[in-house]
């Protein structure tokens, strides 16, 4: 087979200047392009419906601290706004102020926690001054860690009741649906309600 001389190569023949001019001409065309927004709007609508369904008018009543694990229960009511006492992390805290260490409270022979009593008394006074026409409901929330011994809990409860906070609410994590007694009462906890 005879050897042929290669012909002119296409790329070699294209001048750089020409190529630049061509590309510039292409870039100079209209850059308008319509985005397909339908999937995005679909997603937005679904997200909005989900968030509206889970929307709670009462807002966040309790701030859960990371070192406190609330006990779980199946039969619970909706939590209402009230002063909160936090028992956990080795101390008892009322309205953001520490009123004593759990060990000290547990060992103390006195049932009433003096600092807690003072804070609750002040809160009660404030309430009666701000709402002179309303009767004092005496609602209080106890937000305790699930491992807190009853020894500490009873002293906190006693102090609350002695001040006048007789309507004690234990904050719990609702699990599963309301189960029948003797049925699933001892069953494993289901995922929390959304």
């Amino acid at each position: 087979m005879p050897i042929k001389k290669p012909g002119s190569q296409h790329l070699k023949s294209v001048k750089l200047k020409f190529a630049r001019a061509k590309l510039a001409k292409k870039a100079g065309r209209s850059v308008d392009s319509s985005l397909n927004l339908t999937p995005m709007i679909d997603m937005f609508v679904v997200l909005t419906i989900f968030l509206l369904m889970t929307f709670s008018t009462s807002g966040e009543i309790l701030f859960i601290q990371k070192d406190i694990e609330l006990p779980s229960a199946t039969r619970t009511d909706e939590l209402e706004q009230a002063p909160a006492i936090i028992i956990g992390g080795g101390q008892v805290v009322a309205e953001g102020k520490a009123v004593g260490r759990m060990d000290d409270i547990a060992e103390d022979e006195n049932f009433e926690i003096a600092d807690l009593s003072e804070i609750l008394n002040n809160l009660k006074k404030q309430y009666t001054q701000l709402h002179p026409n309303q009767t004092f409901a005496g609602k209080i929330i106890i937000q305790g860690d699930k491992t807190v011994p009853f020894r500490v809990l009873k002293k906190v409860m006693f102090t609350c009741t002695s001040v006048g906070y007789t309507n004690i609410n234990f904050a719990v994590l609702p699990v599963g649906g309301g189960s029948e007694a003797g049925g699933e009462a001892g069953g494993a906890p289901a995922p929390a309600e959304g």
Partner: protein
Amino acid sequence: MASVSAPGGRSGGKKALNVELNLVPFIDLLTCLICFLLMAAVWIQIGKISVTQSGQGAPQDQTQEDRERLNLVVAITPQSYLVTGNGQTIADILKKDDKYDKKALGQKLKEIHGQFPDKSDIVVMSEDSINYQDLIDVMDVCLATDFPNISVSGTI
């Protein structure tokens, strides 16, 4: 994008019927709504169990009816649930595999509720060493067996 076009038919010479909807305000509205809802969302639902402390208020004179009423108490001891009525032991439900037998307690309370359908109050007693979760478990069983008026007492 969102547009409405006339189906087939005469196409030549007539004005195009394609209409482009302006979706920008709609997207703006949705974005604002989503931002607001995300900020206001409560991710952890917390419930409550209402109780009173037993023995509150001045002691009242007991009537014959009061004396005939069942004073139902569930005591939590480190070994068992002790169900008593007017001081008499009704049941002593021992722990199973080092766990409290909530199922048996539920059945017992249900049985008692069957005998006294009007009864709605119950006292939960606990020893000092009992954990908060165990106390809540008993209250949960009481609520599930239609004893909504729960009182808590510390003395056994």
